[in-house]
């Protein structure tokens, strides 16, 4: 037991982020969705911690819900209990966090929602949202797809983990915009890839068997998109197939450079994290912060990719 305690203490001290507590230090707690599930979230966390360390007046408490809504709710409770100055939440589920956010609101602790937004019902309880506009990203992807196919074709879609907000919003943005803008493009089928490259690859392989003609593939992120691309390459059918993703990953960027991948949406976790922290600080400083703070997530395609740095994840 004593060994375990030492281990506990040791592991805590390695991440001790707290600057010496002083009177004007603000304490901000963050509970993230699922660090480690993909590089985006991990890079986000690192960027967030780095940004906080750079600011001597900020002390942060970094928690991770591991993708479990219930655990995230209890983490919000724990943060309220510790009486932090502000809470940043990356919701595991936009709906389910509303009461927790409402509780924080009642306790007078401002809440900033990051990355994926809380449901409509919770908007009145949050101080601000900071992050990408996932619906808009879906729309961007639909527009790129439409443009790449010239308004005609048959496509398939590989979505993220079923039931998660980001996956749902991107799909919704894409589906609605595509139907509206490009009635000539038909979606053959939609199946999940669980944010997992290998599973996306398997899904795509089945699509390839099932459909003789696939002109385009939209994937919920580049990680899955590259999985789909791998499947098409292996089947020798990648030629002429349009691959559109979202959240440009390094692998997607490289594939784009090779001309195999058509386009994606550029979304930097570093920007995301910095924006979240800054929004929280602005709120605490009493500034007038708008409710919705979307940071820019531009389209990235083979043509304009040299304007962007290769993603670090």
């Amino acid at each position, binding site marked *: 037991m004593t060994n375990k305690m030492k281990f506990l203490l040791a592991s805590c001290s390695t991440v001790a982020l707290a600057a010496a507590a002083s009177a004007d230090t603000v304490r901000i707690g963050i509970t993230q969705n699922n*660090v*480690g*599930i*993909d*590089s985006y*979230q*991990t*890079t986000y*966390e*690192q960027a967030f911690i780095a940004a906080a360390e750079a600011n001597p007046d900020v002390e942060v408490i970094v928690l991770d819900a591991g993708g479990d809504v219930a655990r995230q709710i209890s983490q919000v409770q724990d943060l309220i209990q510790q009486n932090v100055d502000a809470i940043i939440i990356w919701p595991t589920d936009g709906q389910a966090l509303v009461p927790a956010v409402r509780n924080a609101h009642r306790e007078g602790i401002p809440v900033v929602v990051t990355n994926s937004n809380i449901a409509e019902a919770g908007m009145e309880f949050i101080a601000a949202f900071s992050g990408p506009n996932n619906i808009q990203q879906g729309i961007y992807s639909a527009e790129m797809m439409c443009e790449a196919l010239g308004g005609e074709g048959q496509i398939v879609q590989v979505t993220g983990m*079923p039931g998660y907000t980001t996956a749902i919003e991107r799909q919704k943005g894409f589906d609605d915009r595509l139907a509206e803008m490009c009635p000539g493009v038909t979606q053959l*089928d939609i*199946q*999940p890839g669980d*944010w*997992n*490259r*290998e599973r996306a*690859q*398997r*899904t795509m*392989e*089945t*699509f*390839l*068997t*099932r459909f003789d003609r696939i002109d385009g593939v939209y994937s919920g992120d580049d*990680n899955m998109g*590259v*999985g789909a691309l*791998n499947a098409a390459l*292996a089947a020798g059918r990648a030629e002429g197939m349009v691959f559109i993703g979202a959240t440009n*990953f*390094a*692998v997607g960027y490289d594939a784009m450079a090779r001309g195999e991948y058509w386009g994606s949406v550029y979304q930097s976790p570093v920007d995301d994290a910095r924006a979240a922290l800054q929004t929280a600080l602005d709120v605490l400083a009493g500034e007038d912060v708008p409710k919705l703070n979307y940071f820019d997530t531009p389209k990235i395609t083979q043509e304009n990719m040299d304007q962007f740095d290769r993603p670090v*994840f």
Partner: protein
Amino acid sequence: MLLTRLKAGGPAIAKQGILVAFVVFMIAFSLMSDRFLSADNIMSVFRQSAIIGVMALGVTIVVIGGNLDLSVGSMLSFATVLVVDLHDKIGPELAIPVMVLATLCLGAINGFLIGILRLNSLIVTLGMLSVIQGLVLIYSGGQNVDIADQRGTWFAMFGRGAVFGIATPIIIFGTLAVVFHVIMTTMPFGRHVHAVGGNPTASVFSGIPRSRVVFMTYLISALCVAVAAIILGSRVMGSQNNVGQGYELQVLAAVILGGTSLLGGSGSILRTVLGVLMLAFIQNGLILMGQPYYTQWLVTWAVIIIAVWLDVAAKRGRLFSPIA
């Protein structure tokens, strides 16, 4: 009446509940989708099932030995992240042996706790599931790992290559299945595993080194995971930290579907292969039919229960359990 027929005429058929179910499904799917029985599709399903299949071979041996292994999922994440990450750092010719050794170490920990210390395998491997998941994340810092030069490396042959037109994963899976089948049915070690799983006390009374046998089953399981990781890493050319999450249950479902008894002492490698293919074809067939992905869960539910039920019913000679 089914009941009497089960006992009298058709034990040969009834005992092959999985085979019957398999054939029924193949026929049903091929009627509903003309793509289903195409050579391309069958090859693609075989290739897809190789990763789970290779893992299921090892787990079958563990289960015949009377234990469970729930840690294979996170072990797969561990091994894949390791081999992909090391690929660019020390080259594939070193990355593979290092990864295999590291994975075997995890298997040895399982084997030590369960075989030597005799702790309950369900709980130990449940604990290891969590521990290993943590280790992966600590190792990678939570970042995805990728192989930079995806085209140039010979590492690609394991997941993407083909020999005589047959994809390498299928060849690896098939070879291992045959090898393990031969080991389990014709070699002393296989006999020992059956004995230890069937009656650990009696096997000690027969001079069988029970601890060592159980230990070995976990090493084999880890080895299978390592092989699966090579296929997976080479196929994807990258890895996420949770890539194997949930595989342990899919693997176990395949093993159960193959008729291996969770009580230990009986089971067959070849029937596990059938179980793996069955699950893969269900998944594939339903997608081909345009069903939403979650129908496969519902179908799997029914198939597992019916297949195992037939198996159990054939063994006891009556359809329904005699308990009041």
